C-alpha cells in the first residue's frame, strides 16, 4: 500500500465532503447515515441515496404531469408529491433539495402554478447536482479502498 497515495486520497475525500456540508448540499443527517455504515454494510449510504434519487425522478415526473395543464392543476397531488420528496430528502440529509421543497409547499398551498413550476425546475436541478457530487464522493471512497486505505470518519461539528 502506497501510504502517500492513500493519505492524499483521504485528504481529498475529507476536503470534498466538508465542502459539501459547507455549501449546504448536505446536512447533519447525512453524517448520521454514514455512522450507520460499517464493514458489513459498505454500500448502505450509496443504496439509500440511490433510492432517494429514484424517488426524486419519479415524483418530479408525476408532479410535472399534474402541473402541465394551466386550467387543470391538481394541487393536492402536487402537494402530496412535495411532501414525500421533503420527507425523503430530510431522511438522507439532502439539505438544498429539502429547502426547495419548503418553498414548493408554500406555492402549492396558495395554488401558485407558476411558482410551482419554478420550484419543480429547481428541485430537478438540485437533485441532479447532488447526484453528481455524491457520485464523485463515492468514487473517491472506492479509490481509497482500492489503494488499501480506510475511509475517514469526518466530524462536521
Amino acid at each position, binding site marked *: 500500500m502506497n501510504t502517500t497515495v492513500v493519505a492524499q486520497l483521504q485528504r481529498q475525500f475529507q476536503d470534498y465532503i466538508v465542502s459539501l456540508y459547507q455549501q449546504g448540499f448536505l446536512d447533519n443527517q447525512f453524517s*448520521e447515515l454514514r*455512522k*450507520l455504515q460499517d464493514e458489513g454494510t459498505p454500500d448502505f449510504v450509496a443504496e439509500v441515496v440511490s*433510492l432517494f434519487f429514484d424517488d426524486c425522478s419519479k415524483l418530479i415526473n408525476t408532479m410535472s404531469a399534474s402541473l402541465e395543464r394551466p386550467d387543470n392543476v391538481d394541487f393536492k397531488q402536487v402537494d402530496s408529491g412535495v*411532501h*414525500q420528496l*421533503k420527507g*425523503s430528502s*430530510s*431522511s438522507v440529509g439532502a439539505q438544498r433539495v429539502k429547502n426547495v421543497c419548503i418553498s414548493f409547499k408554500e406555492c402549492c398551498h396558495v395554488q401558485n402554478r407558476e411558482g410551482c413550476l419554478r420550484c419543480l425546475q429547481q428541485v430537478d436541478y438540485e437533485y441532479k447536482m447532488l447526484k453528481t457530487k455524491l457520485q464523485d464522493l463515492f468514487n473517491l471512497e472506492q479509490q481509497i479502498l482500492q489503494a488499501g486505505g480506510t475511509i475517514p470518519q469526518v466530524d462536521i461539528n
Partner: protein
Amino acid sequence: MAEVLLPRKMEIPNDPSKFGSPDLLHVLAVDDSHVDRKFIERLLRVSSCKVTVVDSATRALQYLGLGVEEKSVGFQDLKVNLIMTDYSMPGMTGYELLKKIKESSAFRQVPVVIMSSENILPRIDRCLEEGAEDFLLKPVKLSDVERLRDSLMKVEDLSFTKSTQKRELETENAYPVHSQLKRAKI
C-alpha cells in the same frame, strides 16, 4: 456399577424474543417511503433488533393476522414486541393502524410508536390519547431507537425472569428419576 441414564432432552420453545439470541426485540416497522424503510431497518438492526418492514398499514394488519379476511387463529406464536409506524401514509394512516391494533385482543398490549416529519401538537396528543407509546419526529435518531429498546427490554427482562423461574420449578418436578440418580453417586 450404576447405569448412566441420560436425562431426557428438555424442550425449550424457540422464542426469538427471549434471551439466548442476540436479537432481543422483534420490531414491525411500517412506512410507505422506500428511503425511510431502508433507514429505519438499518437503525433497528444496528440496535440489535429483529426487524420486519412493510410498506403499508394494510400489510401490517395482514402480517399480524388482523386483515379483513383473516382470523387471529394461527398467529398466537407471532411475537412482535414493538410496532413503529409512519403517520402519513396513503390509504390507512398510522393513526388508524394504531386504533386497529389497540382494538385487537391479541396485540393491544404491543407498544406502538408513531413517526412523523411534522411536529403538529394536536396530532401528537391524539396519538398519545389513542394509546401510542411514543411519538418520534423524523428523521428518527439512533438514540430514539436505543432509548425505546432499553425501556422495552426492561419490561421483557421482568417477564423473562418470571418465566425462567417457573421453568426451573417445572423441570425439577419433571425429572425425579434424575435427582434420585444424583443421590445414588458412586
